[in-house]
């Protein structure tokens, strides 16, 4: 029995370390998407995902150190992430309806890219922004 207990605690340690490493990789890749993300909503989605990974970190650290105070912080972080996403959605809506030049430029770029990829698929000289409406 004691052999099994030793094995299980060692296994838990290895599992916590593996999950921390995987979460770190995920964190770096999400930051890459935030930096690269072609449009504003892409970046907002990636920030939302960053909050989810942060909560995962808190859970893994809690299992590793047996220090459970951070669960409250995880809940607060989730609340703040939700409110931030809602606020960003309102921001995108308001700025877009007010024809903010940055957002208008992003939309035009997206439509240009779509027009080009459609032309590649169809093999025809499709007019740009043809599928806009």
């Amino acid at each position, binding site marked *: 029995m004691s052999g099994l207990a030793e*094995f299980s605690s060692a296994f838990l340690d290895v599992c916590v370390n593996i999950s921390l490493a995987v979460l770190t990789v*995920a964190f770096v890749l999400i930051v890459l998407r935030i930096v690269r993300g072609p449009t504003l909503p892409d970046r907002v989605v990636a920030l939302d995902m960053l909050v989810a990974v942060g909560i995962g970190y808190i859970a893994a650290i809690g299992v590793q150190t047996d220090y*459970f105070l951070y669960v409250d912080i995880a809940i607060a972080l989730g609340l703040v992430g939700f409110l931030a996403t809602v606020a960003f959605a309102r921001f995108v809506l308001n700025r877009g309806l007010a024809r903010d030049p940055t957002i208008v430029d992003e939309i035009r770029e997206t439509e240009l890219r779509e027009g080009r990829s459609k032309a590649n698929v169809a093999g025809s000289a499709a007019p740009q922004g043809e599928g806009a*409406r």
Partner: protein
Amino acid sequence: MTPFLEIAVGLVLVIGSAFSLIATLGLLRLKDVYMRMHAGSKAGTLGSGLMLIALAVHTGEVDVLTRALAGVVFFLLTAPVAAHLLAKASYEVGYRPCSDTHIDEMGKRDT
């Protein structure tokens, strides 16, 4: 804590972080904001929710367990709302889905 519970906690932690990584890969590789949202808000919520459940099983104490489960329920409730709100806002503003999206019911409506 029994050894079997400990092993289960470790497995659930690894599975949860794997779901987070899968959500991140979706965020990186899918083509437009609506597809990325689909990866991030479903697999991402599942990943962090599983890790919080592992934490809840790992603690013996009732107060920490209730708080962790309340956190899971909270994320399950809020993630779809946030994703839907953002998708609605960006569609309303004029970000169009990429050409791989074949069915666009809202596009038909506002021609």
